[in-house]
């Protein structure tokens, strides 16, 4: 199982390339006015890093549950044709159950900004 060796080599190559290229540009001294974050001439009071108020957090929880379920579908897809109608029915049920989750989430407004 060395099929993963090639992707790893490609990752290393890409990173090496990117780091080398970033050494090309001219060097400048980073003065404080140069380093200030861009706000169109305005200034922030604080650092931008903060306890960021994510407005879609219920969606991410729904998403994780959904993603978990999707992982069952890959092996299912491989044996689908062999198993035939049973597989169709089973996955139909499975997806039906989860669609209820999406509908519920929609009704409760989790896809809006909180």
């Amino acid at each position: 199982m060395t099929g993963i060796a090639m992707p790893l080599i490609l990752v290393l190559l890409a990173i090496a390339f990117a780091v080398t290229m970033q050494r090309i540009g001219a060097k400048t001294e980073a003065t404080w006015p140069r380093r200030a974050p861009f706000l169109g001439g305005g200034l922030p009071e604080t650092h931008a890093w903060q306890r960021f108020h994510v407005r879609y957090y219920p969606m991410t929880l729904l998403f994780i549950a959904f993603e978990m379920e999707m992982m069952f579908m890959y092996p299912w897809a491989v044996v689908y044709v062999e198993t035939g109608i049973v597989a169709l029915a089973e996955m139909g049920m499975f997806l039906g159950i989860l669609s209820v989750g999406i509908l519920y989430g929609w009704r409760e407004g989790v896809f809006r900004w909180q």
Partner: protein
Amino acid sequence: MNWLSALARGAEIPVFAVAGAQGLAPVEGLRRRPGLRLVDSPRHARVLLVAGAVDAAHKTALERLHAQLPPPRGTVWWQAAPLFARGEAVAGNDPLPAIRAAAEASDPDQRPDVPPHPWQGMGPHGQGGRGMMGGNPYGRPMAMTAEDIRDGLELDAYSARFGPFLPMLPPGLALDLTLQGDVIVSVTVVSPPFEQGVQGDAPDLCAARMLRLMGIGPRAARARGALMVLPKGSGMRRRLAAWLRGGTVAETPEPLSEALPGLEWAEAVLWLASFPPSQLRAVCMERQAA
């Protein structure tokens, strides 16, 4: 790297344009000029172009912006009185020769090289901070928790002055905003948009500015689907449709400090862009006079 420099010589000059009074229409006219490219952030630019008069109250803001162009950088004052002694002033209709010249220039910073707050060597680790959240680590304090207007989670509120030269806001509009996440919690208008005259309210210009924020050009907008992406009930669809038909918009916006809180950033920016600059200026001036 000689071949790289030779290749780079033919490149378009990236220009960050600041539109002053009566400057919006001329800047929009530069958008399709070959030889230069208007960019959204000063970090991407080689030349700072100040088009139209900027009053002295904005001198510091302009100097800050100037410092954010990576050096070497140049400045061009186009139909504007220079606010600091760098770059070349152009009065005529074509700033391109001056921009070409500025692309060879190398202005020094206009602002003193001091951190926003002193921090070096302070605190237990020398990074200027104290404890978990205190002090000024690396020159700035950390944001602190505050009430939120939407979901009642007390997370950090980010307060900053946005503008007066942010490309997605009307030129000249400076707002003191408090954000929680990307939702605006409170708004104070610091300075109103610049006077743009009749040209600034031209329907095609207003529509093009709004459509640019939606990521498309005016040609794609002829398919009416573009209107569907705007939120219902905010009047944005109506106003953009009017502009696309070539009509003018004469609606008066609500005062910004009441209309913007509760809006998420993209909505707020689109809402502002859906009014002609003159109307926004009028409503901000009214507030300041009162």
